[in-house]
């Protein structure tokens, strides 16, 4: 099955060229050139990955990101012309999984898209418990006392990666490689922002986390009791 990619960009040349590159690698691109239509097209097309430009006419990329995230965990990759700290962090906090600064190479784009599609390829099945959470790896479900905790696929991947080796410390660089699929050093803010989002969903008190613990100056590890 070919993966469907929604490309939201108001620049026709960039959109068309992105389409050419995606098609060449066997993806099925659909396009949207206006911020106000993006959420509608997303609902109609149900893409596997969204490539989202931040500067759009009409509704901004940040708002679109929030709206889509409210109803779906679909992977969202921001395309940013500015790599300014504020923009990137704002985009990540509003729910984007990853970002690519413009200009980018086709190879880089394809690698990022594949990394977001690849996620359950190498997951061994089973059930992992951590703290009072039950993680059904095969079914992609996290429950607390029978109640489902809604996580995006990326957050799920972060949690499973940490929970499989409780107590083991993962540096941000290792997480970037394992979860995001970066081979080289990348922006560690990706990890920080998503750990915060994950904690907000799974921790009883996100200010005093018990499941995803910070190891100062090193990285993160899973705490709590496991079976």
């Amino acid at each position, binding site marked *: 099955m070919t993966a469907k990619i929604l490309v939201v960009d108001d*620049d026709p040349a960039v959109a068309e*060229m992105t389409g050419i590159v995606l098609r060449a690698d066997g993806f099925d691109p659909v396009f949207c050139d206006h911020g106000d239509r993006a959420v509608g097209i997303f609902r109609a097309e149900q893409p596997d990955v969204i490539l989202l430009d931040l500067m759009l006419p009409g509704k901004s990329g940040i708002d679109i990101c929030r709206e889509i995230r409210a109803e779906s965990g679909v992977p969202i990759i921001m395309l940013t*012309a500015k790599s300014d700290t504020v923009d990137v962090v704002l985009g990540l906090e509003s729910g984007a999984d990853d970002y690519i600064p413009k200009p*980018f*190479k086709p190879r880089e784009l394809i690698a990022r898209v594949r990394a977001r599609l690849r996620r359950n390829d190498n997951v061994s099945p089973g059930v992992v418990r951590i703290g009072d959470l039950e993680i059904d790896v095969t079914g992609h479900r996290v429950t607390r006392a029978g109640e489902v905790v809604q996580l995006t696929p990326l957050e799920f991947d972060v949690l499973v990666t940490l929970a499989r080796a409780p107590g083991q410390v993962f540096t941000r660089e290792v997480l970037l490689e394992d979860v995001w699929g970066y081979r080289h050093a990348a922006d560690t803010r990706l990890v920080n922002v998503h750990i915060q989002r994950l904690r907000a969903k799974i921790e009883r008190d996100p200010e005093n986390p018990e499941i995803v613990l910070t190891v100062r100056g090193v990285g993160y590890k899973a705490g709590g009791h496991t079976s």
Partner: protein
Amino acid sequence: MLLRVITSTLVVGLAAVAVLGAYVTTQIRDGLVEKRVERILVESARDVDTTQQTFEASPAETPGELQQLVNDQVAALSKLGGESRDILLVRAPGNDSDVFLTPSGEGALLSIITPDLRSKVATGESQYWQHAAEPDGGGPAVVVGASLTLRSAGNYEMYFVYSLADEEATLELIQRVLAFGATVLVVLVVFMTWTVTLQAVRPIRAAARVAARLADGHLSERMRVKGNDEMATLATTFNDMATSLQRQITRMEDLSRLQRRFVSDVSHELRTPLTTVRMASDVLHEARADFAPSVARSAELLATQLDRFEALLADLLEISRIDAGAAQLDFKDHDLGDVVRDQVETLALLASEQGVELRLWMEEGPHIASMDSPRVGRIVRNLLSNAIEHAQEGPVDIAVASTARTVAVVVRDYGVGLSASQVQRVFDRFWRGDPARARTMGGTGLGLSIAREDALLHDGVLEVSGRPGEGASFRLMLPSGSRGLGLREPLPLDMVESDFPEVGPRVVLAAEAEL
């Protein structure tokens, strides 16, 4: 300021009053005494005259009669002169008459008459006088003496002792009044000085306070203008200055904001078409095997020059961001050794492709400093790229060391080197040592400029030294804390090849360890 003015006023005032008081007192005393002495001399001369005439006209011959006459005369004179004078009648030293008269008057008074006066009186015709002090610690006095011939009793001397106690009392009274007046005057002067100074000082203090507030960034702070004297002028001028300052600063801030906006806009506007061009170029480049040779080569050139264009754009944006003061630094404690090692590892492969060996020497660590590690990494990368490019296939030595307040890295190559004039210009934007040289590293000409700006953003320094044909040495020094660079330099700027092993052990790179 207030205290100083009052102190000096007090000192000057007291000195002036003391001098004036002394002068006035002396003048008054001299005047008083002189007048009195004149009157005394007239009075005593008349009395002596009267006495002499009385004796000459008297028929008294016997000692008893003479003695009686003397007693009557002295009593009459005493009554005449009042209490302020005493009369003394003594036998002259050269009197050889056999009639002896009992001296009259208190004998004690004789002791205050000096021999000098007595001898003058004995010889002279007229009367003589002297200053004296009354016996038994009495006040000042004037003694007048004259010689008399008391018929058959021979020569006698008559002395009048005038007390100056009245003059002394008057003088004391005047001195008391003067002292009181002087005290009041000094107090008044000090009080006036204090009031006037306070009036002058208060606006200055207010100005100082407002200036301090301005310096703290409260640009809308102003002084209160009251009246239209010099102080009001000061306040008005001060306020004008503050307004002008505020306008300038606001203008600079606006400019800086505009510049930042512009950089951000240019960045966005350029990157959008560049994204398309980049992708298109890469698609063509991937497919170049299917093209005719000239088209394939064109695709290749397009791809490589696009890389250069992107690097140039990134550097340009970075330097204009620094110029606009819009660079955001994220300071954290990092080990400079780690940062340098990472960069050396990354560039080691590229260096060996150019036949350059990177040798990293590191002093026993840690070399912790508060830094924005991506920026410091970029400085080191720029220095290494530059060194590799100019090393002429020779080695490049890198040393890391630190002192308590400074961390330093030196990058030294032994290649083409730099002349003195080149050393001056090496950090200039778009400057190249030799424009004709092959640009193997694809440098943008901004790398070292940005590196220096980055060093300055860290309150550090980036320096260079070199000689033609002997290579160049770059040294980056960063303060480890907020106290700035220390005086002691961890590494010398001008290092020769044999210096490096002394810095510390050579670090085995991961790339070498695999071999």
